[in-house]
């Protein structure tokens, strides 16, 4: 199966700072998603982004499928952005049935 590597593993920011989270895949992926896991454990959908660039408020994401990576940008960070950010994708080869392979996550802490 595919391997998903996320970086950095931990990130500490002051409120108002910008950040970039990265996700690398060992093989071609489809159906890439970014999630935010809040302190209560709920996974919140941020982006479904198999390719290209999308923006939603202070967040944006870019996936370059041919180079097997995706980036999540957080601008003007707020304390409520704290939590764990996961990327996940499905293996483009074979029959995946859409099952997601997750990275280990980036733990983001935003201080006031």
């Amino acid at each position, binding site marked *: 199966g595919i391997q*998903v590597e996320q970086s950095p593993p931990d990130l500490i920011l002051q409120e108002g700072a910008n950040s970039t989270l990265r996700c690398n895949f060992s093989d071609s992926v*489809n*159906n890439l*998603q970014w*999630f935010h896991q809040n302190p*209560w*454990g*709920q*996974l919140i*959908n941020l982006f*479904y982004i198999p390719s290209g660039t999308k923006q939603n408020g202070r967040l944006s994401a870019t996936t370059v499928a041919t180079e097997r990576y995706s980036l999540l940008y957080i601008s003007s960070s707020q304390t409520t952005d704290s939590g764990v950010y*996961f990327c*996940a994708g*499905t293996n483009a080869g074979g029959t995946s*049935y*859409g*099952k*997601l*392979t*997750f*990275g*280990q*996550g980036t733990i983001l802490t935003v201080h006031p």
Partner: protein
Amino acid sequence: GAGVSQSPSNKVTEKGKDVELRCDPISGHTALYWYRQRLGQGLEFLIYFQGNSAPDKSGLPSDRFSAERTGESVSTLTIQRTQQEDSAVYLCASRNQASYEQYFGPGTRLTVT
């Protein structure tokens, strides 16, 4: 509309007991997935349902784990003779046929003592 719901939210059980975890997918979502998240880790795939059939059970860690689904509705994940290494958060996700975007429930935190 209503999202994916799971019950119970927390379950503490003694080693050796059986447990049942329940998932209610978003209405109309034919595809349903179970994942497991160990402490400090990413999610691991367990099983996939399309309707009430399970074409991919490759992630179930042992024959103590089983799951079923009623039509395109509720799914239950059963763990028999629980072990301490089964302690984790079990999450369910669903999607519709038009998209591969998955939506997750809040999870069931299972603690085996």
